[in-house]
């Protein structure tokens, strides 16, 4: 790596700098968007003007106005309130997926790296088997077994994400394991648990974090897709993916607000998380070069 950097003129590095500068304001916007969405999710019960699950049919398809800022849906429910509450299921669900998959992947990666040999080979085989299933298919199968619902869909996606997380972290941990400080700790007679949790884990933490930020966007999309397919969050709970699906009939009748608003929320949130993930990953790569 260093030889390559020496041999090349500074052109490559400068272009990287240009690009980073061009996209810098985007990072600030992304963080602001995520904070705003988190606030909306947290404060939904306080700031939502109406109950998200109760509406009256006489109020259906109201245009945006002072009474309903974003209008109402096919059941006369306030769309703004449903979007605010929808932020809760959409963000919380994705957060749980990322947390579970991150924890599972980290444990598998550390166990495989520490014991090596047969254990590593076995973990590798299990991961290969899971890789044989397309992500979404694995999630759909888990839902088929455990039933529909937010909790089931969340676990389903976490299972589907573990192989990717584990594979990336295993390669990082393996590189770290070969370094002198790990061997020094090992020679001092520290137990495997201590070395992995106190020494290895903190040193692969940046990669765990980057992976989580990147996975968050995918998790939001996949979770929304499951809800859209009727396999995730169930009516009448407010959820962005479910709202896109419920709004589809209204859209064909000329009332596109619900689908468009909910879908836009998903796009904005996912874009924000992917910008943050890229930024974290880029900084890491830049730091290492």
């Amino acid at each position: 790596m260093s030889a390559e950097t020496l041999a090349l003129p500074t052109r490559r590095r400068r272009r990287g700098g240009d690009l980073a500068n061009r996209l810098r304001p985007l990072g600030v916007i992304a963080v602001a968007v995520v904070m705003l969405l988190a606030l909306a999710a947290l404060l939904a019960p306080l700031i939502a003007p109406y109950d998200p699950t109760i509406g009256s049919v006489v109020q259906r398809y109201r245009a945006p106005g002072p009474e309903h800022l974003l209008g109402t849906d096919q059941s006369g429910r306030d769309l703004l309130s449903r979007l605010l509450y929808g932020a809760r299921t959409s963000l919380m669900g994705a957060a749980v997926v990322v947390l579970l998959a991150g924890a599972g992947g980290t444990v598998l990666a550390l166990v495989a790296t520490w014991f090596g040999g047969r254990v590593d080979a076995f973990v590798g085989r299990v991961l290969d088997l899971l890789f044989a299933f397309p992500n979404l298919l694995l999630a759909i199968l888990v839902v088929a077994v455990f039933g529909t619902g937010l909790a089931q869909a969340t676990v389903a996606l976490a299972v589907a994400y573990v192989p990717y997380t584990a594979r990336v972290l295993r390669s990082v941990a393996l590189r770290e394991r070969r370094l002198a400080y790990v061997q020094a700790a090992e020679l001092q007679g520290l137990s495997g648990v201590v070395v992995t949790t106190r020494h290895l884990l903190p040193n692969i933490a940046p990669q765990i974090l980057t992976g989580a930020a990147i996975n968050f966007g995918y998790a939001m999309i996949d979770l929304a897709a499951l809800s859209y397919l009727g396999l995730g969050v169930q009516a009448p709970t407010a959820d962005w993916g479910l709202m896109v699906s419920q709004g589809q009939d209204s859209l064909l009748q000329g009332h596109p607000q619900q689908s468009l608003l909910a879908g836009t929320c998903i796009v904005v949130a996912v874009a924000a998380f992917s910008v943050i993930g890229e930024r974290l990953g880029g900084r890491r790569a830049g730091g290492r070069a």
Partner: protein
Amino acid sequence: MSRFLTRRLGALAATLLVSSFLIYAAMYAAPGTPESFLVQGRTVSAEVLASIRAQYGLDDPFLLRYWHWLIGVLGGDLGESLTTRQDVASLLMSRIPTTLWLTTYAAVLIVVFGVAAGVAAGLRGGVFDTGVLLASSVGFAIPTFFAAVLLMSVFSVTLGWFPVFGSGSGLPDRMLHLTLPAVALAVPAAAVVARITRTAVVEERDAEHVSVALARGVPWRVVARRHIVRNAMLPVTTIVGVNIAALVAGAAVVEHAFTLDGVGALLINAVQQKDFAVVQAVALVLVAVFGLVNLVVDVLYAVIDPRVQLGGESA
């Protein structure tokens, strides 16, 4: 090459065998009994229940039932739908054309638009480059089902250019029906491909061999084609392959959105109705296709880059 193929096909067969067991075991472990779906909530006498259990072999031990199912699958008998009593194999065959057309159409769109946008952005730079970068960031964030709803809203409802639902019959009509679904399916993948292609092209453009070629007076057009794009295609092949393989499952969402009669829609309906006979058969077929597509991509990779040795241990 042939040794590589035999080894990989063997590995695929082994994976499918273990997968078939996992899928069957998972469906077996799912709460609820098959006969309760068969009687659909009607109250039936114990004798009828017993005869149903006997007819479907539900009293056999688990391993025996798996064995019977596996032998059937190997002989092309995928079982019988619990809800419609239809033969799953023929049900599946009738659904395959739609999914095949849809995924092929989407794959072509991904390759053509993703790679073209990435190459143009990488070679030209400037405002166009920034535009492609931003568009790919947004495109990646658009879930396929939302792309489907958006396209439907604009091109079917407002403009009336395309039909809203159905798969159509005959080639021109089918293409017309599948255009919006294929575009919806291709959007996020094309965005990722464009992004990766751009990075690869920029990296090659800054490589020393390009400066050398230009210094020797090789025209820019030739350098761009032979030195930059051709070398940049290696990482692109991988990412295109990954994204096309993912269409196998991703098609389900778009088929559901446009009510197309594809394999994915069959799977979703079967899951919703808890028709496990159909779920396990479709899942196994999808895993097989997914494995085959990945195998083809690996072979293609070696064809494009002679330096890649297929004999080595693949990760």
